């Protein structure tokens, strides 16, 4: 018997399914598969969309690659390894900047709070990989020459605060704040390291939407002022231009390469990419996506039980029909194939409907453009990423489940003695 004939018979029986609640069971089975497939497609697409948004945010709002000292929390001297040499060792660097970074306490007249301090070269603000200057003072060109001058003032230099930090310690531009260095050691008491220093708030910047991996409580000062808060700071080392690291943006953050012999442990360097820095969250996002997919696959499994139930019901109610097929020369394997295809057709219709529904919902989300972290949760407007390969796996998996669900009723029907079935008829 040709497979096409078996599929045709199964298809015709599917279309004509009725009586004894069989149609209801068939509709429920198809609906179950469709629901499971649609839910899996939508959830996986939305989760991939969120992951993509996070990834994009990581790429846009943070360095793609940082050259750091091999000693955690320490720095290195640019006098020993020039910036040009470091930059030349990164293959596709598009912009870069040196920086210092430390954790400290910021105090206003009303409140104290911990913050992450960045010291950055003000004249290179357009090369900063962090968007600390964007949206400063309503989006105008922020770090103008007068602002640079004020921020570098010898007596009371200027400081830029993230809006979250400014709100927390209740300050606005023009107010004074003090930075307190908790790492200030006894050996620095004799030197010129800063335990406590006053700054004037020169600007407030807004944290980028959904920026991950960036502490929202940020303060930015000139690199010279920032250096004074490094652990073990000694002004005599200023000519060596100590930095915490050099941050790079690259032309392709997914394909970065560097001279590993230059950035070796012996030279005191280590390289950290944005992927390594965010490995936990990237892993969590991927894991979450697949765990959700697995859990939603349970819907398909439940639907497969429904297929199994409806086919068992059908095999019992249609013993007469099976007997007629057998009397007309259908083999046991033909009956087996027929029932497997009945399950397969239920699954295929469910998969087709589910994939269409899922795809349509994703398309609507995609046309809406997707929400962002700042716009709040909007279930009708979510980010999506189309995943053709995953869709194929979902559809094939659901379809395979419907075949598997048909194995038991198919085996049961194929064992039917035709005369027993004919007795039901007569």
């Amino acid at each position, binding site marked *: 018997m040709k497979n096409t004939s078996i599929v045709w018979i199964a298809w015709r029986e599917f279309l004509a399914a009725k009586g004894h609640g069989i149609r209801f069971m068939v509709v429920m089975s198809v609906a179950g598969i469709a629901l499971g497939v649609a839910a899996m497609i939508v959830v996986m697409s939305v989760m991939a969309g969120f992951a993509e948004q996070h990834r994009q945010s990581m790429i846009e709002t943070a360095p793609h690659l940082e050259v750091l000292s091999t000693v955690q929390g320490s720095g290195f001297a640019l006098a020993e390894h020039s910036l040009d040499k470091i930059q030349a060792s990164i293959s596709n660097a598009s912009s870069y900047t040196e920086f210092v970074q430390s954790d400290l306490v910021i105090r206003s007249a009303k409140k104290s709070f911990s913050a992450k301090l960045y010291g950055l070269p003000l004249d290179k603000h357009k090369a900063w990989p962090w968007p600390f200057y964007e949206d400063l003072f309503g989006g105008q060109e922020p770090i103008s020459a007068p602002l640079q001058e004020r921020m570098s003032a010898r007596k009371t230099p200027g400081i830029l605060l993230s809006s979250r930090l400014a709100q927390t310690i209740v300050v606005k531009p023009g107010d004074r704040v003090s930075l307190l260095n908790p790492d200030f050691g006894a050996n620095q008491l004799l030197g010129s390291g800063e335990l406590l220093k006053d700054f004037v708030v020169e600007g407030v910047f807004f944290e980028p939407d959904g920026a991950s991996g960036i502490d929202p409580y940020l303060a930015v000062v000139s690199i010279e002022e920032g250096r004074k808060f490094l652990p073990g700071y000694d002004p005599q080392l200023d000519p060596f231009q100590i930095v915490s690291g050099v941050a790079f943006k690259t032309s392709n953050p997914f394909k970065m390469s560097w001279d590993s012999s230059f950035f070796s442990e012996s030279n005191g360097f280590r390289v950290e990419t944005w992927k390594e820095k965010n490995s936990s969250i990237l892993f969590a996002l991927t894991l979450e996506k697949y765990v959700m997919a697995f859990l939603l696959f349970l819907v398909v499994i439940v639907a497969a039980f429904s297929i199994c139930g409806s086919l068992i019901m059908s095999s019992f109610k249609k013993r007469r029909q099976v007997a007629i097929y057998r009397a007309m*020369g259908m083999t046991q*394997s033909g009956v087996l194939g027929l029932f497997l295809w009945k399950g397969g057709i239920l699954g295929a219709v469910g998969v087709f409907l589910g994939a269409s529904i899922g795809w349509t919902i994703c398309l609507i989300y995609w046309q809406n453009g997707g929400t962002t972290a700042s716009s709040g949760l909007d279930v009708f407007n979510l980010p999506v990423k189309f995943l053709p390969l995953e869709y194929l796996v979902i559809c094939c998996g659901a379809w395979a489940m419907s075949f598997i669900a048909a194995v038991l009723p198919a085996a049961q029907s194929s064992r039917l003695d035709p005369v027993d079935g004919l007795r039901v008829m007569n």
Partner: protein
Amino acid sequence: MQSTRDNPAETKVDSFKISMQEASKVYEIHGHKVTAVRGVSLTVTNRTCTAIVGKSGSGKSTLLHLLSSLEKPSTGKVSFNGKNLTEMSDSEIAKIRGQRVGIVFQMNNLLPEFSALENVQMPGLIAGLSKKEVSDRAGFLLDKVGLGHRVNHRPSEMSGGEQQRVAVARAMVMRPSILFADEPTGNLDERTSLEVQNLFFSIVEAFKIGLVMVTHDSDLAARLPSQIRMEDGRIVNSDGMV
């Protein structure tokens, strides 16, 4: 029943012989053994035309099931062209059922989901013939049984007589050597019954095949050249049989 078409359902001309030797069939019903056929020996060929008659429960239908390969004997032997049924594989038995014998049942024997044409096509599709070939054969046979105008009608849209005509066409589509019929007119009124009887005889005559018909109807049985009378699972009289 005249047809303007060529005869795509022309019957095989090779000989076909079914032999039963001391065949018995025992069923176990609720723990009790019931013997439906007891030690029957019989030969049927593609030239045989016979009626199996007897009271209800005498074993007529079981004998027909054994002869048409629907059942295997509990003891004894049933062979098809010399090959023992009990030693045949499922696919060999399916080939006999599908291609060497045609079976018409008493009632409700059509597939309700399918049209008349599709019902007639079904054995051909099961046998793996091409869609075109089975369509040609089915169309010809439906014309032959006078239902060429009702090919797209479903069984539920047809009368009992029309359903039996479709069943006859279906039984003939694989050009069988012997047609088996289990009380084919049992559920029909007198006029329709006569029409269906005439159809059987004209088909058998036209295609030159054997006919084995189980019937209660003594008038119908009398129209066949030989009769087998059964009582209590045994043949008590075989008139004109080999």
